[in-house]
């Protein structure tokens, strides 16, 4: 167990070192010419007010340009809520069945 723990620490340090080295390939902070800020974001900023009529660019991207993406996210949230309710309720029903609660079984039948 001790050796496993030391191995995990070693893998963790290796991962940290890879991240620190690869920070050199990232764009400089506050750089206006970085790759993330040049290609598609320019078009969003330049045309969003004209095309969608929404002064808030984040809402324009979220609801108009990438509406299909937000549909998927909404489905994920709904599924997570459904999963929570199903997990906690099903466990309660099976627990009462395991204890041999005849009244609950009669209600289900």
């Amino acid at each position, binding site marked *: 167990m001790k050796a496993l723990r030391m191995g995990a620490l070693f893998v963790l340090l290796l991962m940290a070192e890879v991240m620190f080295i690869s920070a050199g390939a990232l764009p400089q902070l506050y750089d206006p010419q970085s790759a993330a800020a040049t290609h598609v974001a320019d078009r969003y900023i330049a045309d969003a007010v004209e095309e969608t009529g929404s002064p808030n660019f984040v809402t324009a991207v979220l609801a108009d340009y990438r509406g299909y993406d*937000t549909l998927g996210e909404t489905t994920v949230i709904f599924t997570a809520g459904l999963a929570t309710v199903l997990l906690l309720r099903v466990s309660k029903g099976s627990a009462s069945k395991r204890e041999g609660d005849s009244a609950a079984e009669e209600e289900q039948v």
Partner: protein
Amino acid sequence: MKEFFAEYFVYWLIFILFMLGPYGIIFKKNLVKKLMAMNIMQVAVILFFLALGQKAGGTIPINVPGLVGAVNYINPLPHALMLTAIVVSLATLGVSLSLLLLIQKHYGVLEEDELLRRMNQ
């Protein structure tokens, strides 16, 4: 001094904040603390994406009349992506808390060693 701060130092701090997550998930015994470490990791990823969208001399991405041009606004794309990621993190928190409640109800304990011992019995 300013170049040192502006180049990589903020990224390094965000990476250290990120590494708190795997450390807590591997080395902490309590399952609630593992969940908390996962949330810290998510916040670090969100801050990393926000730091990538920065632009010198840019304002917040809300249109000001008379200020036209992509140079004047921060990149809105990482903000829109991270907005949904935060809400999804809340939903996954609900699912994992319900799983923890089930584990607590079934085994009666949330400490990792004791839990493994009781599972192997």
